[in-house]
């Protein structure tokens, strides 16, 4: 168990290191931050000063080693804009994103699981078809299309909900709805098939044969067994907590990490982009770890078996 955890952590760190390296190289190959920050009209001396100031004239591998060194000390570098710590720049945006994503994920899981269970229990009825049609629609509409559709509907035509910013609770409604709809659709589909599968398993027949009422048999026997398969899907959602809202945040001008990422890529603000990517990577890796651990907790068959006599 302990060994397993260590092995998983080592593998996770290698993943993050590879991610950092790739982002580092791609960013340096993609444009000159001096030009992006200062513009093309400034004197070559100013550009040269900027490059000197940020160490951009060093060979790439030297920059890389310096970056890794400071990273190891918990220093994520500094943003070219305002010369602030990149970590601070990202961290102040983080709560907005997390509020959005956590509410959207909770909503998606609750709605998706309920809809999926309902569809499975009423297989081939109108309820099932309705849920699956809505799910297919929610799944196929890209977030920016749905987001703009909602803005037009609630912001322009009915004018009952704000569409930009994050000042009040009401500002969050549309972005959360946008994010949750696609995820809920995915969850509904997976839940439906997982529940249908367990309903047909012999363990369900056994529960009924010993006298458990149908509803209780579904709740106590079928659903917990279906849940095991859903953990992986849930893990994917948790892994996207930081990265999942990039498009939606930009559509609704939500001041989170996602809109910061787009802005920083445009400005070639290396340190900030790298910090965000590392954060996304770590979230993903942690989510995977969580999935593995919850399997151990949920499914006794994955635990090491006790003496078998």
């Amino acid at each position, binding site marked *: 168990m302990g060994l397993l955890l260590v092995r998983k952590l080592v593998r996770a760190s290698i993943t993050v290191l590879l991610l950092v390296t790739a982002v580092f190289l791609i960013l340096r190959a993609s444009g000159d931050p001096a030009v992006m920050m200062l513009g093309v009209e400034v004197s070559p001396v100013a550009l040269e000063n900027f490059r000197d100031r940020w160490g951009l004239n060093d060979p790439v591998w030297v920059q890389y080693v310096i970056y890794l060194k400071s990273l190891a000390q918990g220093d994520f570098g500094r943003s070219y804009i305002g010369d602030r710590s990149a970590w601070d720049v990202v961290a102040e945006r983080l709560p907005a994103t997390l509020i959005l994503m956590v509410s959207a994920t909770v909503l998606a899981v609750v709605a998706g699981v309920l809809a999926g269970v309902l569809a499975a229990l009423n297989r081939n009825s109108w309820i099932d078809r309705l849920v699956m049609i809505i799910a297919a629609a929610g799944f196929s509409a890209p977030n920016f299309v749905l987001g703009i559709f909602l803005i037009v509907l609630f912001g322009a035509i009915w004018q009952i909900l704000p569409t930009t910013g994050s000042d009040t609770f009401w500002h969050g409604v549309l972005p959360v709805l946008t994010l949750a709809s696609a995820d809920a659709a995915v969850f509904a589909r997976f839940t439906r098939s997982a529940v249908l599968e367990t309903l047909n*398993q*012999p*363990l369900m*027949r*056994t*529960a*009924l*044969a*010993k*006298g*458990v*009422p*149908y509803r209780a048999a579904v709740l*106590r*026997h079928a659903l*917990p*067994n279906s849940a*095991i398969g859903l953990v992986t899907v849930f893990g994917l959602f948790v892994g996207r907590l930081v990265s999942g809202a990039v498009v939606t945040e930009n559509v609704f001008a939500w001041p989170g990490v996602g809109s910061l990422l787009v802005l920083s890529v445009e400005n070639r603000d290396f340190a900030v982009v790298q910090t965000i990517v590392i954060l996304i990577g770590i979230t993903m890796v942690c989510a995977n770890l969580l999935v593995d651990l919850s399997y151990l907790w*949920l*499914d*006794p*068959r994955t635990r090491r*078996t*006790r003496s*078998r*006599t």
Partner: protein
Amino acid sequence: MERLLEVAQLRVSFPSESGPVSPVEDVSFDVHAGEIIGLVGESGCGKSLGALALMGLAGPTATVSGSARYGGIDLVTAPQKELERLRGRDIAMIFQDPLSTLNPIMTIGAQIAEALHLGAERRQSSQQIQKTCVSLLSEVGLPQPAARLRAYPHELSGGMRQRAMIAMMLAREPALLIADEPTTALDPTVQAQILALLKRLRQQRGAAILLITHDFGVVAQTCDRIAVMYAGRIIETAPVEDIFFRPRHPYTAGLLRARASLGGGERPLEPIPGIVPPPGGRPKGCSFEPRCALARPECRLSAPLLTGDAHKFACHAPLPARYSRPAEPARSLAWPVA
């Protein structure tokens, strides 16, 4: 003898593209209180489905007709609520492979306790429940029963799992236990132990057992009476000695001849030619007619009815009553049972 369950003309049909298909066509038999009755037939003849239909578990798409009277209730027409109350309390069922039929993520103890809670008139303390669980598990011969309560199904061997399953189903002291191929997935020695356990439980608790199997060896060492099924119908039913020594239906006789014998190795195996007709493609007359050496013209015209008193059979051309092909004395089938 007191009749516990009277099944008459039980039929189970499913819709299909070419009209309804009935894997179980016409099943009639009685179960007497405290007896072990064997329901024998080749796989696919409808034995399991018929038993599931009795418990109202044939599935949502099945249409069940006929009657199955149990203590003033007709199991075929009873509402689901009523069947729900009946299941586990009056009639319980064990299955072939307890690895897939027990809940893999619940401990053995929790699964037995669930059955006990269902039967309890008022809430029992958890210590009380646990004590009952332990005594149930030791009754079915599970070693270290207290430790086994915390075990998951995959942590037990096949025989242990089947014992745990039996304990769970006996928790509410049903009057009838349906055992659907309970030993098919087990090693022969374990098989004999489980059968001995069923016999012992019948004696101690007086529960009747409907033992479904394709294995004549299993019925020989366990059952009081046998009902032989072929293509969705009961074709012969009689006390166990009559079936083994004086079979009247050619199919029964054929099944007995097709068995490998343990004692007399000199007798060659005689398989029954042909295959069992599928539910959709059964002949109009006797289902066994195409494979029967004794078939007469009338066998093609109408399906024979199950007639007789203690020894019933459904055949237009039965074997003579005196016929006594020494179909393997029952004792040679018995394993040395502890």
